[in-house]
């Protein structure tokens, strides 16, 4: 198709401009602006620096999980076990930390360190199981992570008998749950470091691009010499590890190890990614947008709280937003096709 000729009437041109803009930026900026306007109108307390810092702190847990979920989506799969990983991490971390604290009450920080390591290791183990199943045995990510979600949740309940785990050192919650540095809550630092490292990894190293390649076309990736099995394995390992870190931070905030946290994480993390334009077909997605996507969900939840919308209804809104995002993605694809045909 040789020459470009703009012979279309002006109405069509402006419609095209809108389409092009939509194709380029996606649904997220539209939703963010809409949410800001609506909640500012609904509540006076919404648009204050204190509340927005609060939103940021509350969003951190989902944000870290969503980054892991993004890796799984990038490679053309997803991870439904992220919620369970949070629960297992919380329970194992709390059990380890509290019993170590009892055993050696003087070495508080050693107990905290080892407890965190134990928790993160337990959560990562679930990710490793997912990775082995998906990469080596070719189990579909849906079945593998759904199965592991049940395994992990059962194990967490079995370990605790269903009751919360108490007895962690005070310093743990004070530092990682409620601590601040220069007025900024500690979890935000953790998230910032993860975002920075993962951004550099995904965009500035060959291995980062291999994640996109495996999701973009796994056969082409294999024929280009990329170890696709290893890449898939790392995907679920990293996803599990990120969810585990999030689980440990949440444990610090709650000051207890709980088996029933994270139930909404699979849906919310997938929603954050999809709203951010990560393709469910794999191969497409940007980390900075996922950060915004998680923030958006935090913003909506916070706004609905301030506007005193019942928590049951909030769940309805979240599900609807997820579907809306997927529809918007489909419409966008259609625009892409019509613009380039």
């Amino acid at each position, binding site marked *: 198709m040789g020459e470009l000729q*703009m012979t279309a009437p002006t109405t069509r041109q402006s419609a095209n401009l809108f389409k092009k803009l939509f194709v380029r930026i996606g649904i997220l900026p539209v939703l963010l602006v809409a949410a800001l306007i609506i909640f500012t109108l609904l509540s006076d307390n919404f648009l204050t620096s204190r509340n927005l810092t609060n939103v940021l702190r509350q969003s951190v847990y989902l944000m870290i999980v969503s980054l892991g979920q993004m890796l799984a989506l990038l490679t053309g799969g997803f991870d439904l076990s992220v919620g369970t990983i949070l629960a297992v991490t919380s329970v194992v971390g709390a059990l380890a930390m509290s019993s170590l604290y009892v055993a050696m009450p003087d070495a508080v920080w050693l107990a905290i360190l080892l407890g965190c390591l134990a928790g993160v290791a337990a959560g990562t183990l679930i990710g490793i199981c997912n990775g082995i199943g998906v990469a080596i045995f070719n189990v579909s990510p849906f079945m593998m992570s759904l199965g592991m979600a049940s395994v992990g949740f059962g194990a967490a309940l079995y370990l605790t008998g269903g009751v919360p785990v108490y007895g962690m050192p005070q310093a743990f919650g004070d530092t990682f749950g409620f601590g601040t540095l220069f007025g900024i809550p500690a979890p935000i630092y953790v998230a910032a470091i993860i975002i920075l490292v993962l951004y550099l990894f995904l965009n500035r190293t060959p291995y980062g691009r291999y994640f996109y390649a495996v999701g973009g076309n796994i056969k082409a990736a294999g024929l280009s010499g990329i170890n696709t099995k290893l890449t898939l394995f790392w995907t679920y390992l990293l996803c599990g590890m990120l969810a585990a870190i999030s689980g440990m931070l949440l444990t610090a905030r709650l000051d207890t190890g709980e088996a029933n946290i994270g139930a909404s994480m699979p849906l919310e993390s997938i929603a954050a990614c999809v709203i951010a334009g990560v393709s469910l077909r794999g191969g497409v997605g940007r980390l900075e947008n996922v950060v915004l996507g998680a923030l958006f969900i935090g913003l909506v939840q916070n706004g609905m709280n301030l506007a005193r919308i019942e928590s049951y209804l909030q769940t309805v809104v979240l599900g609807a937003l997820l579907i809306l995002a997927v529809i918007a993605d489909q419409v966008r694809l259609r625009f892409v096709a019509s613009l380039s045909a």
Partner: protein
Amino acid sequence: MTSRSDGQKVGQSGEVDAQARNAYPLLQIHDLQKHYPGVIALDQVSLDLKAGEVHILFGENGAGKSTLISMLAGAVQPDGGDIRFKGDPVQLNTVHEARALGISAVFQEFSLIPQLSVLENLLLGAEPRRAGFLDKRAANQQGRDILERLDFHLPLNTRVDKLTRAEQQMVEIAKAFRSDVSVLILDEPTASLTHHETTQLFQLVRRLKDDGVGIIYITHRMAEIKEIGDRITILRDGRYVDTVDAKSASEEKLVNLMTGRVVGQVFPQIDFEPGAEILNVDRLATTDAMVRGVSMSVKRGEIVGLAGLVGSGKSSFAQACFGARQIADGLISFKRQNVTGKTMGQMLRGGFLYLPANRHTDGLMLMRSARENMTLAALDTMPFSNGLTLDRKAEARAVDALAERLNLSPRRVERAVEHFSGGNQQKVMLARSLTRNFDLIAFDEPTVGVDVGTRAAIYEFIAQLCKSGVAILLISSDLPEILNMSHRALVFYRGRIQTELTGSDITEENVLAHFFEREAA
């Protein structure tokens, strides 16, 4: 209405409507236009189709052929101009409306459902019913009638995914004959057919011609144009160029009309200066039995053509050497080292590249940019990275140079590959062979679905690689490609090498003679 009566109808109309047919062409297209935002896909194209004629549409990828036939099939609506069918203006708003008039299209992309049987696919959407339930007996009868009329020998109750690609193509064509057909549109129907199957298809086309069916036929292959074409309409950049008589038009003239410029010979002259042996394979067999005991070798600066039918093992052999298939037996040595059982990654880093036949399913990340697709196989080496972090500036520079060298069009390397034309997608994939120093490159069907201009560029590209000392395996179902490009040709049949031909012995007769099992002689 069963299709047997349809058959009779076609026969009768041959006599009864003869006069009416002479009065008006079967199909008249006048000033047809189609705009897409920013692009004119089709600009005032006119042509007519007579009954009993094979009208070839000829043009480069993106010339507007697909847009034109999509309109005739009712899949795309024109922005201007009109279509007349047997003299009457018609609106083709849906595929169903076009079908109802007797205009059916067989596209390159199959519309078959792999898990359903041949019969279920044939009658999909028009299943005979009795009292609301499927009428199996009538369905069987209809299916048999359609196949009988076309003289296709297909098993009605076999699942479509168990058929060969050629048989699937036949099912696809048979689907078009579910109802009365007066205009048949065939979009590169022989792209995946073997020589023998192509002959069968041409017999069908001739029979349909005799029945008074008008056929619009898209092909890039000169031999086919000569064999079955009556008239050729050439399109370029969405515009009508000319309509010429197929029998008298020379290949040169057609290529000139198509490209708007004088193109030299399609096939380059390739000198033969063999160097050291790169690959030596001894009695290789794969666990899936696609390759059963193949021995061969390739030298630097040599092009070895692998010919044979689809499924003869020629692709599987190259894949097995590359580490993409499990090896049951045999020995592969690459650069004098035993590499049997090495992974694809190890082979690639060792200097062997395999470029697959199907760029969509095996070759490209369609939603990613041309840049990322070009550099995918070399990201772990200089200049693209120091092994740990990417050098994105160096990558951009290298990609610009590659786009320039391969004449990528449009030269927008950040554009998603899916938005390029077929020929340019192929160029993006071929660019990989220049991203690191390869000693051996296997090109699997490098010119499938690519127009003549791009084809010449690809051959030139391969010739240059060969000249620079790269050893080349050229796997192809396109006979002229094997005949004109290879220094040595190996003909595969059922996982074995039937014969090896060198130099002037590589002739069409010699190659074809070994395509099929030699009869007990």
